């Protein structure tokens, strides 16, 4: 048991490696809010009469990653938990400061020394004319181009501990502490029934072993892959559940493409590295298939090899993000109706809250189900890769 848990810690360490990865990929996902300027500029252009509540920026703000944890309030009265920002640029070198250093009104915020600008979760050098483009929403297309320009060349490399990275570190600490204590309790009283924390965690570990790993991998190989499967299972489960705790800033860790991409990449890597002769044989020359079908079958098999981890990534991301978006849509519904009249707002509020609670319960199920599915499919892919020939 203890070697298994040591391996578990090793795999956890592997996942810490994705902190940097996640942030790096986060750069790309920041393009979504950046390109969003485009749309916002449009609304401003043609619909000045419609100055009310716009649900789509509201939802994007809550689903996207951020440089601080936004607790409540709007504008100046908003309550934030600042997070460290780590930047590297050729002009200023390495810079580390807290996100509370950003000040200002409206969409663009600046540091006090005027070096950096923060706009829609995207940090850029303040001297780049980003200010003009973002402040003047009339030139929506122009702003779009400019924000793209920051990604290449003279930009800033953003290695900040963002909300998602902070959430991941929180979960990893929690996992190490929880499982460390559980493992210690097994070591302390061997041969006895589990107590306390170990008693809570053991059914889940047994579930992953007996219902996921062993049926798809077989008794012997399951032991080899269990550290990875257990780590992935508990990481996804805890990240999903953290995202469902209200009023702490709405973490959306497993709903971020870069994070699920790293996990799917590890699944792909392990599948490919552990693939035996039988696996590669089935991939490049499927037995028992007529030769004239081969030109169709082989490309499909090879595409499928890459498609499997991609679908794994999309499924987790889309499920968790969609759950957040649905709940936020119900909140938006209250605000939209509340704008026309208070009575309508309260009336819709009752139904919206009821539906929100319903969706929340479904999301609790989905949080567990997605962790289960991801681990199960990973185990099945490993099982395919290491399957011995039987004919």
């Amino acid at each position, binding site marked *: 048991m203890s070697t298994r848990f040591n391996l578990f810690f090793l795999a956890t360490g592997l996942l810490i490696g994705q902190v940097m990865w996640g942030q790096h990929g986060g750069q790309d996902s920041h393009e*979504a809010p950046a390109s969003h300027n485009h749309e916002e500029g449009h609304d401003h252009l043609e619909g000045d009469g419609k100055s009310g509540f716009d649900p789509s920026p509201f939802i994007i703000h809550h689903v996207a990653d951020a440089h601080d944890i936004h607790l409540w309030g709007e504008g100046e009265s908003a309550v934030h938990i600042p997070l460290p920002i780590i930047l590297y640029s050729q002009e200023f070198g390495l810079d580390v400061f807290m996100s509370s250093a950003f000040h200002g009104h409206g969409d663009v915020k600046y540091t006090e020394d005027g070096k950096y600008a923060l706009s829609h979760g995207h940090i850029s050098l303040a001297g780049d004319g980003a200010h003009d483009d973002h402040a003047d929403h009339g030139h929506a297309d122009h702003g779009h181009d400019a924000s793209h320009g920051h990604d290449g060349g003279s930009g800033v490399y953003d290695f900040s501990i963002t909300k998602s990275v902070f959430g991941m570190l929180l979960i990893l600490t929690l996992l190490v502490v929880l499982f460390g204590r559980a493992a210690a309790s097994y070591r302390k009283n061997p041969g006895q029934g589990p107590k306390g924390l170990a008693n809570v965690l053991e059914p889940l570990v047994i579930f992953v072993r007996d219902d996921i790993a062993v049926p798809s991998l077989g008794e012997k190989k399951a032991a080899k892959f269990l550290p990875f499967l257990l780590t992935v299972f508990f990481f996804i489960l805890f990240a999903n559940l953290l995202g469902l705790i209200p009023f702490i800033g709405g973490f959306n860790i497993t709903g971020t493409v870069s994070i699920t991409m790293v996990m799917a990449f590890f699944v792909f890597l392990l599948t490919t590295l552990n693939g035996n002769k039988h696996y590669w044989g089935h991939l490049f020359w499927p037995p028992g298939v007529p030769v004239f079908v081969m030109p169709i079958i082989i490309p499909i098999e090879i595409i499928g090899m890459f498609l499997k981890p991609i*679908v794994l990534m999309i*499924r987790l991301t889309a499920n968790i993000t969609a759950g957040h978006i649905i709940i936020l849509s119900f909140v938006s519904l209250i605000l939209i109706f509340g704008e026309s009249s208070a009575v309508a707002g309260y009336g819709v509020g009752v139904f919206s809250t009821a539906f929100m609670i319903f969706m929340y319960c479904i999301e609790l199920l989905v949080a567990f*189900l997605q962790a289960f*599915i991801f681990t199960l499919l990973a185990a099945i892919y490993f099982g395919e890769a290491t399957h011995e020939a039987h004919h």
Partner: protein
Amino acid sequence: MELLTILLEIGQGLAGLGAGAAAIGAGLGVGRIGGSALEAMARQPEMAGDLRTNMIIAAALVEGVALFGAIICLLVALG
């Protein structure tokens, strides 16, 4: 520019339709899987555990394809 604006607006409307179509497909697929699994479980209750696992795998695969559609619609609507 005017034409582009109009096309973008239409595209965003169609994105909503696309999300709906993806949901219909997924609904049909998952419905069939669930129904068949339930029938099989009623016929052979001793196999219920195995059937449930396989049902969830198949449903997840169908759902994955539908979510591809949903994600593309989301990108069109926000882009």
